[in-house]
């Protein structure tokens, strides 16, 4: 049985994503599935999550888990014991590869020696710390609960305890931010020398407090006008460019549009997403890609806490009732080709024509003849001997390029 299922998932590598939908308070710009919750809810949630791990792991016995990612929300709102409990269940039920990357996202204001030590003890080997900015004024604006100083303290603590792989999350293009402000944040972070830096620009998402404050402004920015508070497009572009220049001069390599790492410290988990490695999402609202199928858990907390988990085995067997009920998207060949392109092109090294041909039995130049030619003419793509990748200009307008690789009718 297990053998058979493993064959269905084709690849014996897989990743695990565990979602902890809690936080101390919701940040002003946050559009992710998270909410503040009391102790009882958290406890209840953790036990459900552990049940889900046990239940679903049955279908993945033959797979090597190469990465585990605890994301949120803020996983660090859970007690270290709860985190330990979750990871123990993971180790018990799944086969983790020897060198598996095990990441936890943390809020820099909520760490202490005890927590970090325990994280280390249960095998967490990578920390992803949501700093967002090195300027306290900006942190207040974002609605973050920590200061830069608190972050620096906890960062040193993590180093003391022996974490050798730390990512720092940053957000640029904040309301009122100048290019100089952003450079200062980068400089301060570079002094600390983390192994990995994620630098995204702010998206004002509908439904967030930021949207009511800056939604109009964002619309103006999108049209290329002069927004009142948000940086203009040209500034945003300079911020992006400065990020690259500064980070590259400090020995970081941009391996994905918004991600930079020292050699060998690229985030394997994220790369997996871009390269179509199967992953299983566990916890509220988590998304999975298994056996060329995309599906998600319920995003309703009550239902998650009460409800039965759909059988992963049934999904993998493609039982029609379950597929229908769970809204499973079975990716057809064309959709997989599209994903190969629009996900793969986020990687700076680009997408491999050889790999494409091997996977889809059609040459990339054939499947995307028009698009490749057009984007090359527009100076947005470089077509190498094997790899096709975005140019600097192509990165700037990446949505435009990536969208071009959709073939099917939505």
């Amino acid at each position, binding site marked *: 049985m297990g053998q058979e299922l493993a064959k269905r998932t084709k690849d014996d590598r897989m990743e695990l994503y565990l979602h902890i939908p809690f936080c101390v308070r919701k940040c002003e710009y946050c559009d992710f599935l998270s909410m503040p919750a009391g102790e009882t809810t958290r406890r209840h949630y953790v036990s459900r999550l552990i049940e889900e791990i046990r239940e679903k792991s049955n279908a993945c016995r033959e797979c090597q888990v190469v990465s585990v990612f605890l994301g949120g929300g803020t996983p660090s709102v859970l007690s270290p014991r709860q985190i330990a409990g979750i990871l123990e269940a993971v180790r018990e039920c799944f086969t983790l590869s020897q060198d598996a990357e095990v990441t936890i996202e943390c809020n820099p204001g909520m760490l202490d020696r005890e927590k970090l030590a325990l994280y280390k003890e249960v095998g967490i080997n990578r920390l992803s710390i949501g700093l967002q900015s090195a300027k306290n004024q900006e942190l207040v604006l974002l609605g973050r609960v920590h200061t830069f100083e608190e972050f620096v303290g906890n960062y040193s603590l993590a180093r003391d305890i022996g974490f050798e792989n730390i990512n720092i999350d940053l957000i640029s293009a904040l309301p009122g931010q100048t290019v100089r402000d952003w450079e200062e944040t980068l400089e301060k972070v570079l002094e600390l020398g983390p192994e990995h830096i994620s630098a995204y620009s702010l*998206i004002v998402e509908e439904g967030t407090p930021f949207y009511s404050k800056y939604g109009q402004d964002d619309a103006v920015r999108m049209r290329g006008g002069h927004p009142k508070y948000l940086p203009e497009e040209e500034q945003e572009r300079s911020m*992006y460019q400065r990020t690259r220049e500064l980070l590259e001069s400090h020995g970081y390599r941009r391996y994905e549009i918004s991600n930079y790492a020292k050699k060998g410290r690229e985030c394997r988990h994220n790369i997996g997403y871009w390269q179509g490695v199967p992953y299983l*999402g566990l916890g509220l609202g988590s998304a999975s890609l298994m056996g060329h199928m995309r599906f998600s858990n319920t995003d309703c907390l009550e239902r998650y806490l009460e409800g039965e988990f759909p059988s992963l085995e049934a999904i993998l067997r493609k039982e029609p009732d379950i597929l229908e009920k769970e809204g499973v998207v079975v990716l057809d060949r064309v959709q997989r080709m599209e994903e190969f392109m*629009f996900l793969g092109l986020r990687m700076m090294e680009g997408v491999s024509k050889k790999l494409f041909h091997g996977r889809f039995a059609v040459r990339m130049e054939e499947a995307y003849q028009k698009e490749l030619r057009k984007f090359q003419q527009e100076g947005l793509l470089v077509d190498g001997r094997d790899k096709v990748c975005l140019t600097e200009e192509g990165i700037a307008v990446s949505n*435009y390029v990536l*969208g071009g690789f959709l073939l099917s009718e939505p």
Partner: protein
Amino acid sequence: MAAIDQSKIRNFCIIAHIDHGKSTLADRIIEKTGLLTSREMQAQILDNMDLERERGITIKAQTVRIVYRAKDGEEYIFNLIDTPGHVDFNYEVSRSLAACDGAILVVDAAQGIEAQTLANVYLALDHDLDVLPVINKIDLPSAEPERVIEEIEDIIGLEAQDAPRISAKTGLNIEDVLEQIVEKVPAPGGSPDNPLQALIFDSLYDSYKGVIVFCRVKEGLVRVGTRIQMMATGAVADVVEVGYFGAGQFIPCEELSAGMVGYITASLKNVRDTQVGDTVTDANRPCKEPLPGYKKVNSMVFCGMYPADGAKYPDLRDALEKLQLNDAALQFEPETSIALGFGFRCGFLGLLHLEIIQERLEREYNLDLVTTAPGVIYKVHKMNGEVIELTNPSNLPDPSEIEYMEEPMVNAEVMVTSEYIGAIMDLCQERRGIYVSMEYMEESRALLKYELPLNEIIYDFFDALKSRSRGYASFDYEMKGYARSELVKLDILINKEEVDALSFIVHSGTAYERGRKMCEKLKEEIPRHLFEIPIQAAIGSKVIARETVKAMRKDVLAKCYGGDISRKRKLLEKQKEGKKRMRQIGNVEIPQKAFMSVLKLDDK
């Protein structure tokens, strides 16, 4: 079936200003009467009706025959002929009125007489109809029946003291209306022995029966087998069926004789053969002359209609052909636009007619359309003496060949409460109106008369009127004829390329303003590209307005959280979906919406 006693027939219509309760009253009248005489009840034609129902034939609007047992104990046959309620269909209204002998004038007890009330009454009086005023909505707290009665007597000059005071909504005093119809609407004249003379007031196409002609028999009679002839179009056919109108059904009968209202089917395949207003006569025993008042309906408003998806061109043609079967006033001919590809130049009675057709094409035929700015027919007098009737701005000859141009004018009447007179006069002035007169109907209301160019009212005049008078102005117009005018063709250039589908004819005095607004609007509608796009408005080679769509420099990438790729895909798909609705002009993609945005330039 024995002949129906002509003296017991009443043919009438209901006229009213919009919202004064015409349809509600019609419903009440049908409710309070029977659909069949007691004799016909026994004839058991119900089965027949079911059959009709299965075929899904319904009668347009509310032309219906009903039976009323009056207080004198007699049964009367009422033919209630519905009239379209919009100025676009003025001609149809006049033909419907010509089929009646009387008209019920419904006036709102609170609002009193409005512009359309007047227009309709005059139209009815022109047709020698006996007009029977009815005061409706007396249940409203703001009802002032006495004042309204006075108004009717003063302004229209109709005796109104004994006008029924009713509430069509609650059904109050509807019997009074029915009794007055018996008393005051004259029985139809004419003799069944004379040669056939019947007026066509409507027609529709049914896939089983062919064309169904709605008519009022003025003289003579028609029965199955009669060889009929349409006097204006000359079409000849043998009658297959005659009948009258039940509620939603066609009920066949043996014959239609003088005074009766009913339908004829005669294996006619095209509504074009049966023009509204034409006279039906017996081909073997024709009447001496046709009934007066026939005119060929001409389209007043034109626009280009293009399928959003070029491959749907044949579908659009089929849909238009089908609609035309039922709508003799709809015209269309193929045309080609550089920007929009293959489509049709379509002609309509007015803007409402245009909107109806557009809506039907989109809803019933599931077509996604791009419509160009509506225009009117301009007369272009060329130096060489030739006169061109111009419906598509792209066909305007070179200015050097043009001696002068003319545009259609209308006589417009606006009824407005005194506080908004200023605002409405301003509006008419802005729309190049020529003031004719102002009469006070009473202290607080006036009737403004203006001559206005038709092209100034086909866009959004009605909306502007309503918004500037807070809904208190009512408006009506009729065609006046052509007047010489300083007109220019305004071209729009996008990225230096002229977009033919966006050109329009405009008065030289307002060209600058229109050009500027148009550029602003297009700037909002055209998405950014990788390069800067200039948008220019030009008259000939002279650019009069310019805007620029900035180049797209940076778009942001969301953090792809927890592997939620579906969300990312949706974002890209949305972007792509947007692209699908774009038209490529040179290397610029223009959303289809942009072609329509020119219709809404006056946003106040």
